[in-house]
């Protein structure tokens, strides 16, 4: 377990270390995309690392979902398993309505998401193998990394699949969550991304 402390001012890193996690601390706050990249770079240099899982540390994901996704990775010949809240339209999810509409539209509007058959690109729960971990190079520091992740999967021909997961919208995770208006930033970053030198 690796905990990336993105320059927080409390003792998050120490608490995680005492709980048994490797603690990696950004000296300054960089954003979620940068934190994921740091965590993966740390993990992929550990000897024997084969399966990687990224998740938001606010308690919104369930361990049993991760375990099922790891099984999928081993069983179905894929490189990357992404959690989805919207696998089956019939199932009632606990995602708030407005958020659901925005997230569904984002997935439908993204050309790459459609081609890869993804329904929920902005899910923080991902499980992947060493191929993906070694190839990962997120340059969007903020919240636009989810689209960048999909774009990389598309460009590198990683085999992607989805696994239905439940998101626990606790009061804490809602308070830490991104405002929907941030979608504007994400779209803008998506346009810009093609021009970035990598």
């Amino acid at each position, binding site marked *: 377990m690796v905990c990336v402390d993105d320059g927080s001012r409390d003792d998050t890193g120490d608490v995680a270390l005492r709980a048994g996690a*490797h*603690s*990696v*601390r950004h000296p300054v706050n*960089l954003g979620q995309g940068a934190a994921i*990249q*740091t965590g993966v*770079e*740390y993990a992929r240099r550990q000897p024997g690392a084969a399966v990687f899982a990224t998740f938001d540390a606010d308690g919104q994901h369930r361990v049993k979902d991760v375990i099922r996704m790891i099984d999928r990775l081993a069983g179905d010949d894929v490189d990357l398993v992404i959690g989805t809240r919207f696998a089956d339209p019939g199932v009632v999810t606990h995602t708030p309505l407005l958020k659901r509409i925005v997230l569904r539209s984002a997935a439908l509007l993204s050309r790459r998401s459609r081609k890869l058959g993804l329904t929920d690109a902005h899910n923080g729960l991902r499980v992947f193998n060493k191929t993906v971990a070694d190839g990962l190079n997120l340059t969007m520091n903020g919240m636009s990394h989810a689209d960048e992740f999909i774009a990389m999967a598309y460009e590198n021909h990683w085999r992607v699949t989805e696994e239905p997961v439940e998101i626990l919208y606790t009061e804490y995770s809602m308070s830490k969550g991104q405002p929907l208006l941030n979608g504007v930033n994400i779209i803008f970053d998506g346009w810009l991304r093609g021009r*970035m030198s990598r």
Partner: protein
Amino acid sequence: MNWIQALLIVSVLSLLVYLLRSRRNARSKAWVKVGYVLFVIAGIYAILRPDDTTIVANWLGVARGADLMEYMLIIAFVFTTLSAYMRFKDLELKYARLARAVALQTARVPEER
């Protein structure tokens, strides 16, 4: 010569001196400097003979030289803003990589249990 003409010429020339004296990455910025020298020549000409800009403006279907100058200023401003934004993004990425290198060097491993 009007006072405003003298003032404008002095400011354009001092900008030129400032630009030519800046030494950082001289080779890659060489074309910028060439462009700036051309700009200074055209600028001084336009300051001394402002009515000539109106002739150029008329060629392009603009009534006054001053209007043409304003359009060019807007284009230049947008261009500068965008290039500054792109450079800023590049710097942000470099900064993130630097911070990441520090983070990876100072990683703490939990005690074995």
